[in-house]
């Protein structure tokens, strides 16, 4: 009876109620959208690497190591010698390692020197493997595998020849022009920094740098015969990722790396470091959430005001209800129920708005920013915040509800 009366009463005031529902739905939409984008950003951020137990690099800050090894942001402080890499890889706890060698670029995209294990062991998201949309992994020193964004924005296809630049600027004066690379594979989009990376074998990196002295190009074109003669074992790498046989050994191995004598190295747990990095960006998120909650509060107070004004007009109606036996408590509940119904309606509209918004912007975001927004906007946090809104509504609508008990007597 209560809900029936509440909904009929709302239906009898369509314009007022409609506008209130609209203002509430906009503010809830803002709240949900910020929360959703934050969650998705966090998910795609923390999913840049998975299945890797430790990342090892020269001793530096853990955020710095994470930034240059995973996000290809910033510069490594120092390299790791090949011998140290070999020594650590040979430890009995280690299942596999992926070497990373950075420092070159191609038209603004970073070049990553690595081994073929990269394609079999590197995982992102929820333990997803890299998949080729075209071609296959590299086999020869001058093969290159492109990330999805690189291939798309530079319009490269299999068989194209490209030259790498020394350094990471988009216009470099020192090109490795003598030794062009051939595109042999293109990866499917991952929504991570892999999409913006060119992957070449460590041997290729070594080969184009052979003959360089102190950053000056004295190299010549290497024929395939030359390649056999030259020792292409790299002298240094930038960092390496480690997969352990047992997760139990993570901290033991981390300590071993940190205490490694021949060289000053450090090992980080990617998940922990990612979480720490995300926390640093949490300030902006906090500000956005604060603003959205203020907007929401304003809308709820607006609703309360609308209802308070209506109470005076509805005096007679409440009196009739009292006459036929409704208690003052029932009338308070009626007003609360109306407020809850308005809010629930606002929430439904907000969710629909968000879904349509995502549907329309999904392709745009995915193609321009490699950022995939999922339609699944519900999680525990989201439901909790919606429940919290309802609790606040109960408090805010107390004002008109209590006022009604005074007016019903007149």
């Amino acid at each position, binding site marked *: 009876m209560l809900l029936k009366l509440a909904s009929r009463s709302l239906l009898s005031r369509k314009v007022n109620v409609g506008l209130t529902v609209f203002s509430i739905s906009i503010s809830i939409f803002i709240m949900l959208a910020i929360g959703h984008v934050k969650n998705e950003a966090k998910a795609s951020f923390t999913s840049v690497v998975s299945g890797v137990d430790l990342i090892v690099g020269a001793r530096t800050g853990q955020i710095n190591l994470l930034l240059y090894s995973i996000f290809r942001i910033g510069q490594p402080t120092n390299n790791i010698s090949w011998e140290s890499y070999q020594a650590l890889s040979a430890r009995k706890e280690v299942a596999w390692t992926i070497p990373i060698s950075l420092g070159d670029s191609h038209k603004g995209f970073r070049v990553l020197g690595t081994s073929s294990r990269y394609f079999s062991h590197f995982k992102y998201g929820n333990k997803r493997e890299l998949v080729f949309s075209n071609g296959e992994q590299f086999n020869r020193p001058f093969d290159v595998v492109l990330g999805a964004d690189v291939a798309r924005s530079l319009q490269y296809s299999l068989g194209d020849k490209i030259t790498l630049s020394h350094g990471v600027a988009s216009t470099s004066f020192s090109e490795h022009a003598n030794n062009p690379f051939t595109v042999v594979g293109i990866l499917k989009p991952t929504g991570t920094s892999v999409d913006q990376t060119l992957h070449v074998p460590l041997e290729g990196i070594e080969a184009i740098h052979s003959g360089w002295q102190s950053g000056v190009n004295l190299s010549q074109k290497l024929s395939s015969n030359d390649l056999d003669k030259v020792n292409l074992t790299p002298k240094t790498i930038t960092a390496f990722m480690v997969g352990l046989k047992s997760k139990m050994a993570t901290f033991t191995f981390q300590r071993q790396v940190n205490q490694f004598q021949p060289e000053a190295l450090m090992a980080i747990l990617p998940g922990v470091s990612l979480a720490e990095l995300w926390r640093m960006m949490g300030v902006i998120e906090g500000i956005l959430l604060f603003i959205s909650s203020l907007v929401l509060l304003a809308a709820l107070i607006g609703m309360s005001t609308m209802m308070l004004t209506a109470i005076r007009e509805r005096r007679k109606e409440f009196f009739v209800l009292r006459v036929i*036996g409704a208690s003052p408590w029932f009338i308070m509940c009626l007003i609360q129920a109306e407020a809850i119904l308005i809010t629930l309606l606002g929430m439904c509209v907000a969710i629909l708005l968000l879904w349509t918004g995502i549907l329309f912007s999904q392709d745009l975001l995915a193609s321009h920013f490699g950022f995939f927004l999922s339609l699944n906007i519900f999680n525990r946090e989201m439901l909790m915040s919606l429940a919290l809104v309802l609790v606040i509504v109960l408090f805010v609508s107390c004002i008109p509800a209590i006022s009604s008990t005074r007016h019903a007597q007149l």
Partner: protein
Amino acid sequence: MNNAIKTSLNQKPDEPLAIELENVRFTYDKASDSPLLQVNHWQVARAQKVFVAGKSGSGKSTLLELLSGLLVPQAGAVKILGKTINHLRTARRDQFRAQHIGMIFQQFNLIPWLSVEQNIAAAHYFSKGSGKHKSLVNKLDELLCLLRLDTAIKSQRTAELSIGQQQRVAIARALINEPEIIIADEPTSALDADACDHFIRLLFDLVEKNRATLIFVSHDRSLKEYFDHSVDFQKLNASF
């Protein structure tokens, strides 16, 4: 006292009186010394039709709200059907009103955004009557028929009805729970002479059929002759 003797004609000996007021004192303004309403003694027997005459603004409506338990006196006892309702808790008093008292006003008897049927169903709901919904529908149809209303108006919103129709639906609303007491506050003031006559005859038929007690308040003394007896509100209220 004369009234009290006359009223006992219809009263069965084992039945409590319909209404009994004892030293009732009520004021809105607690600071003032003279009360708005002071009734030393008044009683109404069962199945009586009593006319209360009085000018508007004399506190008649206050008396009716005290009888129905919408207001509670500062002192004294309001006994309805033998129960001292001003000592009941609010929720019990509201339920008592829903079950035993039907009220009709000059206007705005019905909730405008509900249909006729929903208005009456709401009144039925608050009485927590044992009757199931089907019996409610039957009872409503019967009432509408007795009130010369087309059952087709059931689904109409009450705001769309004429005032005459609204007042008759108000009778149906007041009687749906078969209350022992009907309180009518100037119910005919908004009606023209013909409609007024028609209204009173329909009301009387139903009141007699239910053996209900009717308290009818009006400033129009010409209606007095329809009733078993009448009371002058000015004489009833000792505070004047």
